[in-house]
C-alpha cells in the first residue's frame, strides 16, 4: 500500500504507531511518506509523542523505521503546497490528512478530485469535538463526497497554508487542544481506513464529542449538494 501522512502533530503522532503496526503485519509491503514542515518543540510534549526536538516528519519517521523495519518510511520535512501536491499525492494512494488548517484540507480535496482513484481520510478537531471525513474516488468517479461537501468552511477557508505563514503567525495560530480529542480523531480515522481497505465503508463522515461521549457516523451520499 502507498500511504501518505500529511501532518505529524496532534493527530498524526497518535495515528502513525498503530497504523504502522497494522501495516507491518500485512503480507504485502507498505510504503509510507510522512510530510510535515513543522518542528517538535517542548510545548508539544503535552499532546504529541516524540523523543527529541526537530522536524516532525523526520523525528517520527526515524522512530517508526527502527520499530517497524519491514516498512519503508520516508520523511519529507516540508508542508504540502499547490506546487508539490502532485509530486506527493498520486494515483492509488491512501492519504491521511492530519493537518491543522482548512486551507490544506481544501488543497488535498481538490488535488484528490483531479486523480482517478484515491482515498483521502481527513480528521480535525476543536478542543473536545471534531469530525472525520472520507473522500473516495474510484476510476474517475466520486464514491463519496469531497471534503468541501456541506462544509463551506473548507471550501472557502479563512485560515492559510502554514507554508504561507511567518514564524510569528504560526506561533499565534496555535490554540489549546486536548490529547484525548486528538487520540479519538486518530482512532476514528484508522477505523475508516480499515473499513475502506476491507471495502465495507458504511459512512462518509463521522462526528464525535468527548463531552457527551457521542460518535455519530453519517452517510452523506445522496444528500443535496
Amino acid at each position, binding site marked *: 500500500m502507498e500511504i501518505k501522512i500529511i*501532518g505529524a*502533530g*496532534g*493527530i*498524526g503522532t497518535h495515528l502513525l504507531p498503530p497504523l504502522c503496526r497494522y501495516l507491518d503485519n500485512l503480507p504485502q509491503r507498505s510504503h509510507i511518506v510522512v510530510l510535515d514542515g513543522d518542528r517538535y518543540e517542548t510545548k508539544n510534549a503535552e499532546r504529541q509523542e516524540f523523543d527529541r526536538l526537530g522536524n516532525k516528519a523526520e523525528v517520527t519517521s526515524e522512530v517508526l523505521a527502527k520499530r517497524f523495519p519491514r516498512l519503508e518510511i520516508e520523511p519529507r520535512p516540508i508542508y504540502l503546497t499547490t506546487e508539490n501536491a502532485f509530486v506527493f499525492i498520486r494515483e492509488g494512494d491512501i492519504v491521511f*490528512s*492530519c*493537518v*491543522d*488548517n*482548512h486551507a490544506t*484540507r481544501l488543497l488535498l480535496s481538490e488535488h484528490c478530485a483531479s486523480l482517478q482513484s484515491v482515498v483521502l481520510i*481527513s*480528521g*480535525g*478537531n*476543536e478542543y473536545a*469535538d*471534531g*469530525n472525520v*471525513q472520507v473522500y473516495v474516488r474510484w476510476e474517475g468517479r466520486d464514491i463519496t463526497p469531497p*471534503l468541501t461537501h*456541506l*462544509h*463551506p*468552511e*473548507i471550501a472557502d477557508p479563512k*485560515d492559510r497554508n502554514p507554508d504561507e505563514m511567518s514564524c510569528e503567525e504560526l506561533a499565534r495560530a496555535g*490554540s489549546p*487542544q486536548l490529547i484525548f480529542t*486528538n487520540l479519538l*480523531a486518530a482512532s476514528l480515522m484508522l477505523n475508516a481506513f480499515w473499513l475502506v481497505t476491507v471495502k465495507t465503508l458504511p459512512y462518509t463522515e463521522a*462526528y*464525535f*464529542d468527548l*463531552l*457527551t461521549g*457521542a*460518535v*455519530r457516523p453519517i452517510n452523506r451520499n*445522496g*444528500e*443535496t449538494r
Partner: protein
Amino acid sequence: MSARQATLISGANIQEIDLPEGAITIVGVVIARYATVMNIPDGKRRVLLNGKSVVETTTVNPGDTVEVVREAGSKG
C-alpha cells in the same frame, strides 16, 4: 418518539424534541429553542431537513429530522 416529536442533530449529538401544538415550528425557531443544550453556535449555518438543504423559515413537521451541519474540526 411521540406523535408531536422531531429529531434535532448537531455534530455527534442527537435529541428528540417536542413540537408543541400551536407553537411556531419553523427551523430557525426550533434550533434557537435547543441551541444552548445542543451547543449550536449562532450565525451562518447550514441546515438539512430530512437530508435536504433548507432555509430556516421551513416548517418542521412531526417525524422530521433537522440537522445543523457542524463545521469540520480545524485543528489536528
